[in-house]
């Protein structure tokens, strides 16, 4: 590559850039490949449930009326948690869930945008007024976890958090009509 052929030289530069672009392609393929692989094999997705509900009459509705909130175990053994995220508290303030079993968590907001995560787990969702936020997960570790509201919802945002008790199977005893609440410790 003597300097008598600068043009070939420029084509050579673009050649190295093309080679680098090929490396970038491998990089993207690796990143997207992992996402695709886990999505196709063990259904790892961000929460996906577009379910409209009118926030203005939420407290009148059956599913999210005050008495129906908390953890219920269905006849088929499915565990469903229903909770409300409202300005500056979650209801119920303490949620009992089983370990190593599929749990469906459903949240709704009657007023402004909230959001929540459960520390140390993959439960994370925004709670937007007008929609039911639903997350399916399995809790792999037992113990008391923190469930803060992680989206700014007003001046009381910092004090808005709840507790999640992940109970091992032998302590996860629903009562007659399938409801279970936190063990008072």
């Amino acid at each position, binding site marked *: 590559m003597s300097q008598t*052929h*600068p*043009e*070939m030289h420029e084509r050579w530069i673009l050649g190295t850039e093309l080679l680098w672009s090929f490396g970038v392609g491998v990089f993207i393929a690796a990143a997207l490949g992992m996402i*695709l692989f886990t*999505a*196709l094999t063990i*259904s790892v*997705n961000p*929460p*996906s*449930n*577009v*379910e409209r509900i009118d926030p*203005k*009459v939420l*407290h*009148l*509705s*059956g*599913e999210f*009326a*005050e*008495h*129906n909130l908390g953890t219920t175990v*269905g006849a088929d053994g*499915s565990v*469903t948690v229903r909770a*409300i995220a*409202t*300005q*500056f*508290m979650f*209801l119920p*303030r303490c949620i009992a869930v089983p370990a190593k079993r*599929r749990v*469906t968590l*459903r949240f709704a907001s*009657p*007023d*402004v945008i909230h959001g929540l995560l459960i520390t140390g787990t993959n439960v994370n969702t925004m709670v937007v007024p007008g929609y*039911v936020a*639903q997350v*399916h997960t399995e809790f792999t570790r037992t113990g008391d976890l923190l469930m803060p509201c992680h989206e700014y919802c*007003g*001046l*009381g945002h*910092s*004090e*808005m*958090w709840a507790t999640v008790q992940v109970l091992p199977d032998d302590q996860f005893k629903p009562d007659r009509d399938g409801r279970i609440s936190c063990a008072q410790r």
Partner: protein
Amino acid sequence: MSDDTRHSEPNVLDQSWRTWSAVAVVGIMLSGILLGALIIPIVQGRGAGLDAYTAICRALGIIPGSPAQPQPSDRTPPTPVSQVIWTPDVLQILARADVRRGHEKVQEVCVSCHGETGVSIAPDFPHLAGQSGAAIYKQLYDYRTGSRSHPQMTDIAKALDESVIADVAAYYAGQPQRNPNPVTLAEAPAAIVQLVELGDPKRNIPPCAACHRAGSGGPIETPVLAEQRQEYIVLQLKLYASGERRNDVYARMRTIAAKLTPAEIDGLAAYYRAGFR
């Protein structure tokens, strides 16, 4: 310069750019759509026992549910705590209430206990002067539907006809408060000021000001506490704590009142009685 670039006219060189870039961009977009809207939902749907059409509709958000999980069903009868719903037309009624008509009804019904200008005559009757119109509206509505009960108020509220509730609320909301300058007020105990301004993170109590201070962006029906009767605030907090009063939506006040110590309840009542905002 070697030969081929000088002879390649700009538009020939350009044509390859146009085709290759268009092909690349559209190709990447189509692969995204193919994977996101078709392959992933169908494969996940098969795992969850859903047919391809349902899985794709769920992934696109046309029907509720995740393409990878069965959707829980729910059959619970509604038993609401308070029937009041804040819809645009309710807010319009409140905004366009007729204060004069409200004043007439007040003189006819309310003045004996709540006073002409909203200054109540007895300790356990609340002051209504300068109270939030939405708050008065909600309480009257809750008395009518039985979500809240009181020996006199339940019958009075039931006797009022629907249209005059907003007018009464607007009349009392319009009555002036003393609005004392906080600087001149006696020094409030630090613990109480802390509870009002910062709340108590340890007991998960949000600051009172986060909802009760005007313009905090809190719930619509939040009442104004400034210059309220001390005994009335103490009574209501105790009713909330015991759960006897249940018309607070999603148990906001029942949860907080249950955590307050009697000393804090008295301190807060005195704080707001003094006229702090």
